[in-house]
């Protein structure tokens, strides 16, 4: 875990139209670790992910993925560089089948054989999806949709996974399974994860690093264990 920093963000600012949401975000995520971004509603967590994945264009600052400057790179190109974004609300194509959705995630890949292998691995990882290959996206339960969105991202063999509120609207058991899966992916494949969560407790339980955002700024970036244990900090920013 002493490896290089996969994601480096310097002075990132972004917003919608004239309204700035992010102001000078600094953030580093080492390769093979999980960083949890937590904070109150409206802190800019989702906007941070959207700015990182190219869905909105930053107004200032720098985003480096593996040392490569990503400024101005469109979304579909960022995917090819290894940045996978699973948005809130999952981003599943509801009129395509499970299998078609997953294959979509690997369409851009040149290495067809490895894309096929990645697909197999996703089916092994998510047994329910393998059973429902021919079902349409809108026929899935919330948990299955989440698996599908996550699976579609993994078919592209990302280096960095941006996950927005994976716990939203899901049963605690499903959330726990998702978190365990993230840890498993990190340990087995060296996947780097930037996780945005409202559910602070479960996010910090799985993360290596905790990033607390407030009003569009990063106020604290510290080892997750430290955030878990520091009672004052928790009271001040996290409300538990």
């Amino acid at each position: 875990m002493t490896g290089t920093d996969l994601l480096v963000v310097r002075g990132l600012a972004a917003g919608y139209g004239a309204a700035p949401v992010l102001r000078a975000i600094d953030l580093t995520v080492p390769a093979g670790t999980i960083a949890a971004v937590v904070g109150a509603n409206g802190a800019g967590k989702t906007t941070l992910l959207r700015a990182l994945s190219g869905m909105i264009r930053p107004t200032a600052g720098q985003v480096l993925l593996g040392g490569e400057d990503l400024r101005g790179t469109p979304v579909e190109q960022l995917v090819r560089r290894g940045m996978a974004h699973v948005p809130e609300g999952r981003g599943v194509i509801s009129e395509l089948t499970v299998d078609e959705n997953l294959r979509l995630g690997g369409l851009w890949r040149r290495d067809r054989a490895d894309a096929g292998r990645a697909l197999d691995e996703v089916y092994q990882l998510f047994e329910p999806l393998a059973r429902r290959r021919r079902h349409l996206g809108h026929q899935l339960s919330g948990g299955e949709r989440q698996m599908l969105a996550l699976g579609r991202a993994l078919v592209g063999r990302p280096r960095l996974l941006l996950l927005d509120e994976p716990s939203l609207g899901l049963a605690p058991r499903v959330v726990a399974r998702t978190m365990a899966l993230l840890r498993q992916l990190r340990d087995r494949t060296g996947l780097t994860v930037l996780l945005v969560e409202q559910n602070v407790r479960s996010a910090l339980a799985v993360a290596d690093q905790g990033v607390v955002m407030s009003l569009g700024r990063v106020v604290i970036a510290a080892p997750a264990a430290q955030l878990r244990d520091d009672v004052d900090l928790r009271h001040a920013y996290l409300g538990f």
Partner: protein
Amino acid sequence: MSATRAAVPPKQQLVGAGRPADRRRGSTLLRHLAVVLAAGLLLVAVSYSVEPFRNFQLATVAAYFCATAGLTVLTGLNGQLSLGHGALMATGAYTVALCQTAFADRGMTGGWLLPLSLAAAVVSTVAVGAVVGVAAARLRGPYLAGVTLAVAVVVPALAVTFDGVFNGEQGLSVPVEPPPLSLGAYFPYERWQLWVTGAATLLALLLLANLIRSRYGRTFRAVRDDEVAARLAGIHVARTQVLAFVVSAATAGLGGALLAVLAQSVSPGAFSLTLSLFLLMAVVIGGLGRLSGALWGAVLLVALPDLTHSLTELLTLSPAVAQRLEGNLPLAIFGLTLIVVMIAAPGGVQGLLSRLGRALLARRPTRHS
């Protein structure tokens, strides 16, 4: 990075997802080929058993089918509304007229000239379609409808403006060679027309059906459903939309060219805005997003004017009234049909048939969930 590439070692090879899919794709191609061959044989059989006028009508259905199939791919599968497909058909029609005239003027003859002209029609329509498609990819909803509407109005107007080339409202004639002598001296011309248009349409449909089932078909639908999700999956949305427009334009151009070959003439009046609206109504009534629905639409496009013609003949009306009725009744009937179909069967004719089929299946003792 290398660690990520290694990923989860597959412990046991589950049902390999890659290979069965490839096999499926292979069989899809074969299935489509079989359907097309069967349809071709059926057409030949039918062409011998019905009168010449029916042959001509079937050939017209085939020509319209080309255009409606392309439109249903664009609007149904890719979610781009086009009010300008009549103009794309005109592009193909005028190209084929210019090519055939040029060949005839130079005294060139041969069986390969017509296919060459048709190919040229497809190419020129693809060029126009690409330009419109690039604009369309930047626009959504009413704005897209507006631009394609403009195309529908502008293209016939161009034909009138540059009357040195396109001969204005009079239009151009399309010299077409008689059927080859090897078919016999008395081979009916209409049968030959059905063969030519049928073959061209079936070829276009074979390509279209395979495209729909391919990765491109999937990206078309993904972009229609959710552009953001599609982009996040690494799909270039604008490129996909332009591709869909180009494919759709190619078939529309071929359809228009075939119509011109059938009529042996082309004029701006034949490709008015009404035609564009008719095409759109036809694919919606037939069942949007399905090639079978496009076929029903094409049949309607030919059958409805014919129906109104017989209707006005049945009624004893003064010639002036009859003529006016004949001109406007198809449009009115088409509109009414559209409203009724949308209320009674939002899936169109094909959706209704599928539902009937499923209901019949469910009635049989072998129940399935």
